[in-house]
């Protein structure tokens, strides 16, 4: 093989690796929560970054600390079952806090999980 051929192969491989690297980095890295209102995604927050977030124009407030997320405030009326602020902390894949009156859900994604689906 000539030197030209090596350069040719090398370039093709380099391009492939670059494309792959771009694809890998645009994938969500690490755990995060997806906030959905009426079925549509409205926000995402990194579970590894502490913070308090105002959701859905102020109807709910989410806190993230130490890799866990929970609802610290909500304007929803207390109905049957657990109010979203009493549903506890979520940190595992697919775990969800649901605020039904506001049609709002907060779900953990991006984590390795040992289950595909959860029966509830």
């Amino acid at each position, binding site marked *: 093989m000539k030197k030209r051929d090596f350069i040719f192969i090398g370039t093709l491989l380099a391009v492939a690796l670059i494309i792959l690297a771009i*694809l*890998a980095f645009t994938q969500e890295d690490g755990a995060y929560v997806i906030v959905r209102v*009426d079925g549509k995604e409205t926000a995402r927050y990194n579970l590894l970054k502490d913070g308090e977030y105002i959701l859905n124009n102020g109807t709910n407030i989410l806190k993230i600390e130490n890799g866990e997320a929970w609802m610290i405030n909500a304007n929803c009326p207390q109905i*049957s079952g657990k109010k979203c602020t009493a549903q506890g902390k979520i940190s595992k894949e697919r*775990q969800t806090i649901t605020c039904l009156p506001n049609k709002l859900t907060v779900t953990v994604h991006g984590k390795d999980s040992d*289950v595909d*689906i*959860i*029966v*509830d």
Partner: protein
Amino acid sequence: MKKATIIISVFCIICLLFSFGGCEIKSMPHEKTLSNYFDTVSTIYSYAGDTEAKFSENCREIETILANYHKLFDIYKEYDGINNLCTVNKNAGCEWTAVDRELIDFLLYAKGLYYTTKGEMNIMMGSVLSLWHTARENNALPDEASLVTASEFTSIDLLEIDEENNRVRIAHPEASVDVGAVGKGYATEKAAQYLKNKGINAYVLDIGGNIRIVGNKPDGSGWITGIKDPHDTSKFAEKLIVANTSCVTSGDYERYVEKDGVRYHHIIDKDTLYPAAHFSSVTVICEDSGLADALSTALFCMSLDEGQALIDSLGKVEAIWVTKSGEKHATDGIDEMRAE
């Protein structure tokens, strides 16, 4: 080396690289969340590897089916242009209500399940259930005397179904229909049948926690399914590998009112008129979602022996019971489903 050989080998290397990197991207299922049906949140998943467009189209069809049954089964609200169960309840003790054939079919189905479950799943428990519903809304407990009075109007025979003329009638003004124990499952199964009829595989319907898996994953494998531990809902009581089936859990941790430190959940035992106290959760696994939904409620209100006898008589149904002290009981078929 010839140019062609070089190009082909480089092409193969690139394909290999992409297949390793790409498989991470491809294995994520499509998902769509819905919030408007059956007073709960639902999610549709596709593991079929279909396009975004095809998935959206299927979701639209599924949503149409769920919306239709949501309206038909709604006992709190009427909708323009249709007579639903709210209408039927309003006419209790008075006239017949003309309804769509779909509603007749459902009521006949539910009536059949009354007999199958020896009366434990009874859509005519409305008079008792509405007292509990009001109680939960007001964070109070219902009056015991009222419960007893209401229980006099729960006979399944009070539901008169005129198949020939597509009309129904509740024979006593105090009686009412409440299909919470089976309606969601029935609608879920209708959506699943739509997918099956179109030859669609590898979809999972999570309708407010009721799981209906249609088919297998493209590689033939099943889904690792976690059943929540009712005593610590961040953990699983069981992890099973299942496909082409429904999984429905009835538990005491979902909807309730708490008074003086005591929790009163939403599954009412017809014998006590109070929340059933046999178990913390019962999970039913069988293909039909309507059956799974009805059975999970019925078994929750029966002793373990009675429940096991009922399952034995039906066949092709598996179940897991978790008692209040955390003991687990399961039918024989569960063993081979376990993930570990």
